[in-house]
């Protein structure tokens, strides 16, 4: 079992002498093998939540558990996919993917074999000896995703992974991620500010408010997806389904209210 549980999480940052509350009493559970997306305006603390699950940041109060164990510090049981790809520019594609396996002490032959396997899964066979700067943004992010899958983590933490890609590439990557999640299901926490992306990819979508970050609503996408059979459709077709439009509009309304509401924490 590899669920992610946030229990009463608050995060306060010092900001020029005053204290800024980024997150206030957030509790949220992501069951094993579920794909959960968090949407919210910039500065609502969604990335902070992900960084806490990754162990890159500590909550001011509350506790994060992954697979039942409290998180304190980063570890290979929780893989992170960053918006900036974060590939090592001095390592080849193969070496990048094999890095986490090397940290585990896996022998070279074994880790090279696994690296090639995951590269193939991402449809990128033949690029293993390239350096990251020789690849397009979309291909770089595929390598980063392969690197995360290769360490076979309990959970995947994706921080706006397609945020820096152009629209067409982003759509293709979303379809790709769905395909990979099907052959290799994982517990996923996915941060985005794209409403369509969240609805298209996630089992459940969490809407966060800003200043301080709180959960407004949790929307279960699965019943609508299954009823309309989006899994069998290309993304542009799924986007045209009435159920999809309805969910998208509902989340947009929540976000709009949120953007127009006066902030409760004016500093």
């Amino acid at each position: 079992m590899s669920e992610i549980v946030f229990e009463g999480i608050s995060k306060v940052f010092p900001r020029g002498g005053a204290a800024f509350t980024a997150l206030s009493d957030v509790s949220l559970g992501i069951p094993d093998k579920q794909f959960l997306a968090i949407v919210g305006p910039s500065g609502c603390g969604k990335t902070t939540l992900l960084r806490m699950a990754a162990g890159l940041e500590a909550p001011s109060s509350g506790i994060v558990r992954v697979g039942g164990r409290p998180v304190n510090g980063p570890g290979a049981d929780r893989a992170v996919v960053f918006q900036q790809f974060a590939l090592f520019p001095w390592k080849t594609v193969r070496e990048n993917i094999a890095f986490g396996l090397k940290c585990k002490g896996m022998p070279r032959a074994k880790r090279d074999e696994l690296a090639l396997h995951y590269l193939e899964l991402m449809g990128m066979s033949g690029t293993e000896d390239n350096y990251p700067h020789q690849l397009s943004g979309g291909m770089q992010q595929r390598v980063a995703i392969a690197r995360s899958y290769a360490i076979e983590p309990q959970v995947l933490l994706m921080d706006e992974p397609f945020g820096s890609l152009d629209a067409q590439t982003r759509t293709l990557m979303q379809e790709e991620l769905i395909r990979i999640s099907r052959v290799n299901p994982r517990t996923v926490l996915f941060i985005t500010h794209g409403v369509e992306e969240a609805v298209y990819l996630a089992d459940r979508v969490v809407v966060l408010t800003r200043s301080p970050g709180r959960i407004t609503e949790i929307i279960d996408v699965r019943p609508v997806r299954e009823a309309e059979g989006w899994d069998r459709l290309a993304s542009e077709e799924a986007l045209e389904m009435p159920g999809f439009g309805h969910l998208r509009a509902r989340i947009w309304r929540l976000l709009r209210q949120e953007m127009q509401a006066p902030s409760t924490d004016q500093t």
Partner: protein
Amino acid sequence: MAGILTAARPGRGQLALLSVAGTAIFFGLWQILAISGLVSKFVLPSPTEVITAGLTMVVEPFAGNTIQGHVIASFGRWAMGFALAAGIGIPLGLAMGYWRVLDAMVSPIFEAYRYIAPLAWVPFAALWFGTGIGGPVMVIFTGAFAPCVLNAYRGAHLVERHLIEAARTLGAGSLRVMAEVLLPGALPSVVSGLRVGAGLGWQSLIGAELIVVSSGIGYVLVQGQSNLAPEIVIAAMLAVGLTGLLIDIALRFAESRIRRRWGQTA
């Protein structure tokens, strides 16, 4: 010629030509000054005398060794001191860049240390490590150490934060982060530090040899002076300059290769 001098952006070949011309003018003026009789040959020997003295030392030992023997002795000391400075300085600089606690602890002493000229260490170097190999090696070390530490430290700060975070979330421990992320990420800066350190180390070595040892190119300088042979002094100075230039060219070459390999992305 006038065309070259006024060209807004001289090409590579033109620049090389200008370098050769400048050097030729320098030696030409020097030769004219020396043979004109305006200055005594004991004050300023001519370039031809200097080159003759230098070439003579290639075959006839002076001060116990041939000139190439002295250069090799100096180079060996330099290599030892420099390797020591790089071997200790680079890991220390990276570690200071990684752990703030270590940075806060070491920085004050280090900041004071780096303003002490390497030659100021000569008395202690002789006292602690003697005048054979240890003393001069320590002087080179004190010269090369600070740039090695400083550039590794600055380079570590330039490594993008998300690369360090990616390595940690993939299960890398601190040592692996330093060896596989900070060091390669900081490498261009580290190599610049090595270049500065190599130069400073080489300069301080010659200084140290003037004072404490009985071999090496600095020793040739002192012996030339006491034998009233200024052409030997200048020949030794040229050997110092040329060796330093060769060291710098080698490191420059390494630097450009690294920059090319690292590509455009950082």
